[in-house]
């Protein structure tokens, strides 16, 4: 790519300095209108309404070409959608133009929470309340919901907490997180003797936990070691590729993993220790409490970690990797550590699911799931334990709730349309998530004002461009 030697490439936009021709006045007015923020937002809201109609409309059928689109747009349903989005536009425009009054009211409304929440005792109280609720409420639910609690909510909360360590604390984008889950699940199958390959000794699935943790951590170290030197986007793609590879390998290695049909008859958990005998059968509640136990352990462990030297090192690496290295932090080691710790949580989840369902197949470990967990973490708030828990719980609960009470034409298959939109909207409007970690919120706000960067992926220089080499005289 050759250098441009001082040649202006486009004429800089200049207002014409000649007298306006007829018709130009109208053109100018149109241009001015198109630059008006309110008008722009209105147009966006209309388009958004149409898109919303498409999303909430009926399924299309390709052979009948645009049937889906026709079905959605030519139906009175479209007006409801437009009403919703234009309504949102009205709210935003009002807020924009009456900013002072709005701030005043919102200031008063938010005053109490703002004053009270930072207090540690209040937060601890909230956690305890949540914990009490989590223990007392579930037995009152019907079996459908108990199942949801286990398979959709509980497991994914655990997974979100684990991925939060990787993405939230260390700022590493892992798009192959589900691979460690697979390792946990297959470990369970292996050590209980259900895989075509047989282990040296058969274990009770409960005792698979430590082994699965170690195996997953090892996998994390092996994957992370070489790849964590890469910059953020590359790391993401490599982990994605790795996740794909794992799935294909699981599919193809018939003799080891049981191939595409998967593994069946994995035994349920049972403990037989010191006279205490308990067997987890088909009922959901016992699994729920088992998962809850792990969640609590993970929360306690990771909370301590966050406020320790390790947590601070992660924050330093995220803020400014060069400065962190200069302060004696072995950045690679800490990145691999985050990766391995996150992997172990995923592995644990894999063991639980394998023994609960009793059946494991490669189709369970799609990239889509890795991305789902990512959505949960981001929605809840990267780097925030409360965020991971609440975000995962809410986003996993909502689709199930809509299944039972279908509002507004919700269709199971549309789920990822919403998730995709959520990701984009979150990044634009609330990147710190639902319940942000305070540090993260600070980092993002600072980055927007040009002070430092909010993640470890920035390598310092001005936007755009493959400068072959940074200016040698400047700071890295």
């Amino acid at each position, binding site marked *: 790519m050759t250098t441009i030697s001082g040649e202006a490439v486009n004429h800089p936009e200049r207002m014409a300095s000649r007298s306006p021709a007829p018709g130009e006045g109208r053109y100018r007015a149109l241009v001015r209108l198109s630059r008006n923020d309110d008008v722009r937002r209105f147009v966006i809201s209309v388009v958004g309404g149409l898109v919303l109609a498409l999303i909430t409309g009926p399924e299309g059928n390709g052979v009948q070409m645009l049937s889906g689109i026709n079905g959605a747009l030519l139906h009175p349903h479209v007006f409801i959608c437009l009403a919703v989005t234009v309504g949102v536009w009205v709210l935003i425009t009002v807020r924009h133009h009456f900013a002072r009054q709005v701030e005043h009211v919102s200031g008063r409304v938010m005053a109490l929470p703002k004053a009270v929440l930072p207090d540690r005792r209040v937060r601890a109280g909230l956690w305890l309340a949540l914990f009490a609720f989590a223990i007392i409420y579930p037995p009152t639910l019907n079996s459908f919901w108990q199942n949801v609690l286990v398979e959709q909510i509980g497991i994914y909360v655990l997974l979100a907490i684990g991925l939060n360590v990787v993405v939230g604390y260390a700022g590493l984008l892992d798009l192959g997180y589900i691979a460690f889950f697979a390792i946990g699940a297959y470990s369970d199958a292996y050590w209980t003797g259900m895989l075509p390959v047989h282990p040296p000794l058969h274990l009770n699935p409960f005792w698979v936990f430590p082994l699965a943790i170690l195996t997953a951590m090892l996998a994390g170290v092996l994957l992370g070691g070489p790849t964590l030197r890469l910059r953020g986007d590359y790391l993401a793609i490599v982990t994605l590729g790795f996740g794909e590879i794992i799935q294909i390998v699981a599919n193809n290695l018939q003799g080891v993993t049981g191939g595409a049909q998967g593994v069946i008859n994995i035994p349920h958990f049972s403990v037989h220790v010191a006279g205490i005998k308990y067997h987890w059968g088909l009922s959901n509640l016992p699994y729920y409490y088992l998962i809850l136990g792990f969640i609590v352990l993970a929360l306690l462990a990771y909370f*301590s970690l966050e406020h320790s*030297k390790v947590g601070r090192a992660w*924050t330093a690496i995220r803020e400014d990797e*060069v400065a962190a*290295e200069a*302060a004696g*932090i072995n950045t690679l080691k800490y990145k691999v550590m985050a990766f391995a710790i996150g992997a172990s949580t995923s592995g644990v989840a894999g063991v639980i699911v394998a023994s609960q369902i009793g059946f494991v197949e490669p189709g369970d470990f799609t990239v889509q799931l890795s991305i789902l967990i990512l959505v949960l973490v981001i929605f809840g708030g990267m780097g925030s334990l409360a965020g991971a828990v609440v975000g995962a719980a809410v986003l996993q609960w909502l689709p199930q709730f809509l299944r039972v009470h279908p509002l507004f034409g919700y269709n199971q298959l549309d789920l990822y349309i919403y998730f995709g939109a959520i990701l984009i909207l979150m990044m634009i409007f609330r990147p710190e998530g639902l319940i942000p970690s305070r540090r993260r919120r600070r980092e993002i706000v600072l980055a927007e004002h040009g002070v430092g960067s909010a993640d470890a992926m920035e390598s310092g220089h001005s936007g755009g461009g493959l400068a072959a080499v940074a200016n*040698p005289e400047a*700071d890295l």
Partner: protein
Amino acid sequence: MSAPASMAAAAAASGADGDALVEVRHVTLRFGGVTSLSDVSFSQRRGEILAVIGPNGAGKTSLFNCLTGVYTPQVGEVLFRPASGTALSVVGTKPYKVNRAGIARTFQTSRLFNALTTFENIKIGVESRFSVGPLGSMLHLPHTRRAERESDAKVVELLEFVGLTERANTIASSLPYGDRRRLEIARALGTRPELLLLDEPAAGTNPAEKASLVELIRKVNTVYGVSVLLIEHDMGLVMSLAERLIVLNFGQIIAAGTPREVQQNPAVIEAYLGAPESDEDGR
């Protein structure tokens, strides 16, 4: 530049060989077509305050980067001989290891952890010297708790030393400029260095802050016994602090010696196009 003059410069640059803390030998650093440093050799004595001066673009920060393992010169060696521990060849060593060995640095534009408080910034520097692992942190082992207490104590000590005790809980990004400089020095000191590299510590500071920075740097040298290598443009500051100077121009050492000697060196005067200005602000 004529050969005898450059050899004289090299000789003056090495100082007395005996107790060399750092020896830079024939370092050449190239980036594609640009030669940033060319056959740079000098050494720094233990306990010395040495200053590197030179016009913009002379290669000073590149030199720092070579001294801390951030850049790897194509030619040459950098030998570091800390009193504690074994000698280290910096070339090809990762920056964090170089820091562990005893070289700490600050940056031209303060690279603080902006979203963290003053206290936390320093603490990160301090605790890099404690070996605390994830397990210990998760389980609150006694070893970990002791490390926390000790590192906290050290941070408090450093806060007092640089005069930032009042601002311990301020978020780093909201610190006034002069305090940001101090904080960076405190963080660097937290890593228990024997050699502290300061990259334009006084850039952009007003005369009052400058004076107190001079005091601070001198204290670092006398109280903690840390050798200092600093890049500076402000000749007044350099004159009052440095025992010896090295002058870089276009990646080469053109002069070295005491401040007085260097100021009268014709090559130096030529490089600066006349008398060096005594109050050049940062960028």
